[in-house]
């Protein structure tokens, strides 16, 4: 395996940092990934050398910025194997991407139509649909989850019908790390003529995804979870579907003709990219994708699986520790509680040891309601973590447990 974590860690300046006198151990990768130097440098390089507004300028800076910006679109297209470049819409992040779709279907659905959401979703893949359904009276149905946190596929097959117009599911649950069987969900949905949106916020960083092979209708992700900067993401949609839905925002760039009486929208992808985009961010996103491909998604996946297994078996040795979503098909996330201790207390004490974990509901209140818990401690791993860090985590949890009992 051509993968050396020590060398890779040198690419991430933040890993030199001390927290409360201890070396930073970053186990909050699912919230946001850390950023390699090449990505940070690409942002400085943009502002130092060719910062300019894009698409409309006749001058050289604008041309360079446009080329790099469009080059980034090409990289995303290639990496995810979209059919057309214009199927990649740059957005400010997954949340924005999902809202484009929910808004787009606002006037395409009515009160006989049904939409299906999974019980494992992040608020970003629930609230936009609730807002839509409130307006067009479409009916929102939920795929329930079982005691392990897995989607009940049989129930999905019972819920779906010819009335179902849209199904939206995350690829990987941010709270439990469970990988959902999206291939099967897509196949079943398509049999009923329903479209599928996959929220890939938590999958894109962990394995390679092929839009054409998946035959997915819409897919979304955020750069800041992919070694890229904050404030950027993308929406993928099949061309004929994106052409069919209304734009979400009005503004510059997304029009081809404007009079006070009437406006014609521009072609894809511009129709959905109103206003000056996050130019430096989009360009840095492309650099981040290049960086991850250089490391290799196969390597990333293999290494992260090893880490996850190690962490899983190690943490299970702790008395009273319960893991939620402890299933076979998962990636890079362990969500747990320790009997009698509030997750917030554990998180606070781990921080004192320089360990960054997330505690709380992780924007998935329905999952918390399902397990009847106030929250969990979530350890989310990435290829920048080491096995030694898991040992340190283990020791720190033991200490926290003894302090708090």
């Amino acid at each position: 395996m051509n993968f050396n974590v020590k060398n890779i860690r040198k690419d991430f300046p933040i890993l030199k940092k001390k927290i409360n006198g201890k070396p930073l151990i970053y186990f909050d990768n699912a919230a946001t990934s850390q950023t390699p130097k090449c990505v940070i440098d690409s942002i400085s390089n943009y502002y130092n050398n060719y910062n300019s507004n894009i698409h409309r300028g006749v001058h050289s800076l604008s041309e360079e910025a446009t080329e790099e910006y469009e080059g980034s679109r090409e990289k995303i297209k290639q990496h995810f194997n979209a059919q057309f470049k214009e199927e990649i819409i740059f957005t400010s992040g997954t949340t924005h991407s999902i809202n484009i779709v929910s808004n787009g279907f606002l006037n395409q659905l009515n009160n006989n139509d049904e939409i299906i959401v999974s019980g494992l979703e992040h608020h970003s893949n629930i609230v936009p649909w609730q807002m839509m359904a409130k307006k067009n009276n479409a009916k929102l149905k939920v795929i329930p989850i079982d005691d392990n946190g897995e989607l009940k596929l049989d129930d999905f097959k019972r819920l779906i019908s010819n009335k179902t117009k849209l199904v939206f599911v995350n690829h990987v649950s941010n709270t439990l790390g469970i990988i959902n069987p999206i291939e099967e969900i897509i196949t079943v949905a398509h049999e009923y003529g329903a479209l599928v949106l996959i929220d890939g916020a938590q999958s894109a960083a962990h394995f390679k995804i092929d839009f054409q092979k998946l035959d997915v209708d819409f897919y979304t992700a955020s750069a800041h979870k992919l070694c890229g900067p904050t404030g950027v993401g993308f929406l993928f949609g099949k061309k004929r579907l994106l052409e069919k839905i209304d734009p979400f925002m009005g503004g510059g760039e997304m029009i081809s003709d404007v009079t006070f009486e009437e406006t014609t929208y521009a072609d894809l992808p511009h129709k959905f990219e109103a206003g000056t985009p996050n130019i430096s961010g989009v360009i840095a996103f492309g650099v981040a994708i290049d960086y991850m491909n250089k490391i290799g998604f196969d390597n990333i996946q293999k290494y992260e699986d090893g880490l996850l297994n190690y962490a899983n078996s190690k943490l299970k040795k702790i008395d009273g520790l319960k893991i939620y979503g402890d299933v076979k098909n998962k990636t890079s996330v362990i969500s747990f509680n320790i009997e009698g201790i509030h997750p917030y207390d554990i998180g606070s004490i781990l921080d004192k040891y320089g360990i960054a974990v997330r505690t709380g509901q992780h924007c998935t209140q329905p999952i918390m309601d399902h397990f009847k818990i106030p929250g969990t401690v979530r350890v989310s791993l990435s290829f920048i973590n080491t096995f030694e860090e898991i040992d340190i985590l283990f020791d720190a949890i033991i200490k926290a447990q003894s302090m708090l009992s």
Partner: protein
Amino acid sequence: MTIENLQQNLIQDFEFFEDWTQKYEYMIELSKGLDKMDQEMKSDKNIIKGCQSKVWLHADYSDGKIKFLADSEAIITRGIIAILLMVFNNKTPDEIINSDISFIEKIGLKEHLSPNRANGLYSMIKQIKFYAIAYSKN
């Protein structure tokens, strides 16, 4: 004692601790000494929103002073609540309104009071001041 004096005492107490573990152990002690709130008082009316660990705060006004009751699910949060009640409980609205809360920073617990922590303590202090303003108008 005045709020100012109480705060000075706390700052001095905390200066004794050599590291964060001693400080946290002390807070966990305080937490165990704090009265639990009755279940019926843990109502939606008393809950402080936006918290990772829920915080409840109840206030009563009598004899010109405000009596606070507060609780939380998390033990460290309860420890800080205990500290806040040491300082603000049984004080007049005016005393509370005019008090400074920077002592929290001086005893090194600032991290629990940033709006970020979302643990309700930040909102709890706001709410304490809020009650004081409300009762001062009585």
